[in-house]
């Protein structure tokens, strides 16, 4: 039996009005990878914030026992000194600075007030090698991809002499290849004796790396599973997370008659907005029928979002060529307004960046894309607007005290529902949903899938972009596979499988 490195004993953390953590226990042994799973808002991040000293000793109840001694961290610095280093979900790197500068940010090498650049870059290179990066540490962060940036974050943690590494959703912005590489790196570290805690929504990854899995639900620990002592699969974890058997993660869509082709894209080519000679989308052909859900699967960076946004009123790219037919009519949509008028809707993957106005209430966000629907001659009918927002709240089961609540205060799943409501209110015929379930918990995902099915049943055409294979397979009537700007395959639901889709991508990669 290995030595216990960390024990969090009866941790209770109360925010005004909410008990975020209720008597949570967590025990981590030296040299293991311990996964922390739970729905959004279950309290995983709060627990890690308690551990790393973001919530200082005294603001919570219970004890943190690390390496056999009770710790009373006041700041992050205190916990880092002990070797507890947390890597947050959002990358905290300065794009205009070099890798080396970022790695020792706040922890600079050299004398006080005088940075020793040779030591900085020399040490940075050493740690970069440990995480398998071949880049020089003098390269600027903005010039490397997100996958590599995530590795820099890890190298940065190593440079702090981490003994216990906490990774909060480390793969949320990575594609499958980079994710896999990262997970393998974690296993490699484990061999060298590092202890790690990983928080993740992606259960397949959890199953892949974890030695133990602790499930948190509603601020309490539900159970800890030992992956070596028992058979673990995703359904077993989900059962713990939601507290019920999810017999089917994807609701059935039955009795939907496919209608005529509603949207057809031919020979669609899009160039990068700045590097105009670079093709981001290359000669893509796509069609979708009424009542059909078409999936577009591709790794991140394959050009899926770019394809969608260029169709939606040329909102992305330059030198766009090809034809777009809606309902058999060729159209030229010059901006988002024209696209909305052509009954097209694009539900973005980036809720916070370009989907919602977080500082405004649900009511305002719901009506934003269709102000005509709640106004007369440019004057808003606030009562009607309230009514519309409230109807969608009830219809989509958005959990909020009222539609006057600012969207920024909602959880990811509820934000996604507000975003969907906004676009449903424009009464579109064709909806392009870009990663509709990213970063939201299992329960809310199911509800989103039900909404998608309802849309299809109502005769709408749905194009769903996703990088989660089970979701694509579970929801689509037909699947396009995209790789490096091109469509490299098209499969019907019956013939599609995880293996066939990946095979398609691998073949396309070799064909180059």
């Amino acid at each position, binding site marked *: 039996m290995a030595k216990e490195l960390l024990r969090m004993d009866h941790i209770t953390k109360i925010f005004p009005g909410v008990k975020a953590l209720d008597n949570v226990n967590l025990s981590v042994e030296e040299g293991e990878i311990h996964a922390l799973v739970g729905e959004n808002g279950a309290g995983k991040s709060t627990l890690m914030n308690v551990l790393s000293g973001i919530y200082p000793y005294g603001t919570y109840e219970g004890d943190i026992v690390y390496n056999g001694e009770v710790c009373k961290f006041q700041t992050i610095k205190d916990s880092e000194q002990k070797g507890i280093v947390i890597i947050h979900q959002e990358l905290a790197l300065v794009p205009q600075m070099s890798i080396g500068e970022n790695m020792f940010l706040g922890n600079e090498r050299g004398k006080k007030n005088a940075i020793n650049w040779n030591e900085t870059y020399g040490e940075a290179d050493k740690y970069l090698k440990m995480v398998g990066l071949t880049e020089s540490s003098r390269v600027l962060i903005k010039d490397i991809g997100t996958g590599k940036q995530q590795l820099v974050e890890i190298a940065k943690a190593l440079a702090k002499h981490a003994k216990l590494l906490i990774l909060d959703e480390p793969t949320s912005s990575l594609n499958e290849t980079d994710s896999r590489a990262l997970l393998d790196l974690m296993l490699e570290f484990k061999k060298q004796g590092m202890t790690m805690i990983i928080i993740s929504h992606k259960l397949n990854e959890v199953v892949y790396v974890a030695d133990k899995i602790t499930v948190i639900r509603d601020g309490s620990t539900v159970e800890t599973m030992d992956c070596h002592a028992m058979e673990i699969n995703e359904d077993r974890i989900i059962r713990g997370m939601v507290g019920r058997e999810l017999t089917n993660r994807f609701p059935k869509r039955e009795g939907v008659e496919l209608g005529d082709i509603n949207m057809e894209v031919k020979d669609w080519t899009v160039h990068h907005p700045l590097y105009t000679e670079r093709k981001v989308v290359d000669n893509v052909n796509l069609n979708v029928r009424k009542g059909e859900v078409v999936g577009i699967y591709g790794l991140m960076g394959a050009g899926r979002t770019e394809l969608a946004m260029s169709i*939606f009123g040329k909102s992305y790219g330059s030198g766009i060529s090809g034809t777009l037919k809606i309902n058999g009519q060729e159209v030229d949509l010059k901006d*988002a307004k024209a696209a909305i008028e052509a009954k097209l809707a694009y539900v973005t993957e980036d809720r916070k960046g370009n989907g919602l106005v977080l500082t*405004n209430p649900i009511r305002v966000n719901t009506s*934003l*894309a269709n*102000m005509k629907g709640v106004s007369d001659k440019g004057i808003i009918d606030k009562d009607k607007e*309230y009514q519309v927002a409230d109807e969608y709240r009830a219809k989509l089961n958005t959990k909020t005290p009222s539609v006057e609540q600012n969207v920024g205060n909602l959880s990811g799943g509820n934000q996604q529902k507000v975003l969907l409501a906004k676009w449903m209110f424009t009464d579109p015929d064709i909806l392009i949903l870009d990663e509709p379930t990213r970063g939201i918990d299992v329960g809310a995902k199911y509800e989103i899938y039900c909404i998608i099915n309802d849309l299809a049943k109502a005769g709408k055409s749905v194009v769903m972009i996703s990088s989660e294979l089970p979701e694509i397979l579970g929801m689509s009537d037909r699947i396009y596979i995209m790789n490096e700007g091109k469509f490299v395959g098209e499969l019907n639901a019956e013939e599609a499988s995880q293996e066939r889709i990946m095979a398609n991508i691998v073949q396309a990669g070799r064909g180059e």
Partner: protein
Amino acid sequence: MNKNKAVSVLKKNAMLIVLVLVYIFFTVMTSGQMFQAMNFNALITQNAYVYILATGMLMCMLTGGNIDLSCGSFVCFLGAVGGIMMMIKQINPAVSVILMLLIGVVYGVVLGYLIAYVDIPPWIATLAGYLAFRGWGTALLSANSSTGSISLAAQKGFLAVFSGKIFSTPVNQTNVVCLVVGVLACVIVVVTSFSERANKIKKGYEAESLVALLVRCILSVAAIMLFAYKLAHAGGIPTVLVWVVVILLIYNFITARTVIGRYFYTIGGNREATRLSGVDTRKIMFFAYLNMAVITAITTLIVTARFQAANAQAGTNFEMDAIAACVVGGVSAYGGAGNIFGMVIGATLIGVINLGMSLMGVDANWQKVVKGGVLLAAVVFDILADKKSSK
């Protein structure tokens, strides 16, 4: 009423309460001088330019904390042009006023185009105007007048429209028109408040409680009647008050009830999301600065009429006064939040502090120090209150 509700009502009206307290403070410190009819009148005539200019500034700030640094210098320049037209070229004052407004439109189109379509950061584009118009205005004045100032005292009609009193009476008499207008305003406020509530209840929406409505009505009526009574003993309604009230009402309507007004807020909150919702965001930015220039032109008319002259110092620091009024009035420095009512409270608060300190005989330099402190305190309060409520 439970405690939480009371706290939230207090927080919402914090600036209003501060305003009342500050007013009482100065009234006590000046042994009642502050409460004299003459000083009510001064509060309005001295600060009219702030209310008007801050309205335009509010619209700019809503779009994302954008400001216009050039408005003060533009007041100087446009005043010089107006003075030359009316006094030296002998152009009919009405025509001159229209020409001045047109020049405002032209400047607004240029500025709006540079900011919205050429993507020049607003503070840089307007910094250029800040430097250029002050110089240009001063140069025009010194070329046309030996004193560097053009007197407009002879333009009685112009002065009457943009300064002066409506149905003026001597100070020792009570101005009846003023009182009647005050009563009418009270009736309008009370009737619209109640009918709005009745309408909401009829349609089955959540409406404010009757007690809250009554309290609000009583306070509004008291404030309006106090002003009406005081102004009635200071010679009547100042013309600028009419201009100010009309502009404030129009923009209150635009920001609160119109679609285009809504877009100013959503652009400030998230420009990309607004653009992808089919809104022409560049057009809105263009309007913000076109509007600002027109508002500045109106301000110029009022300011030149008040001083009865066009001079090189006109408009100095006006842009800062407008920005300060907005910020103290709770307009977000990052955009997306703020309203006309708050801005009016902010502008009045600064005006009261100015007037009170002058009456107390506080040194002008120390007045600036106090104003700076108030500005900072208001922002700190705002941010702390925000942080608390979001926790």
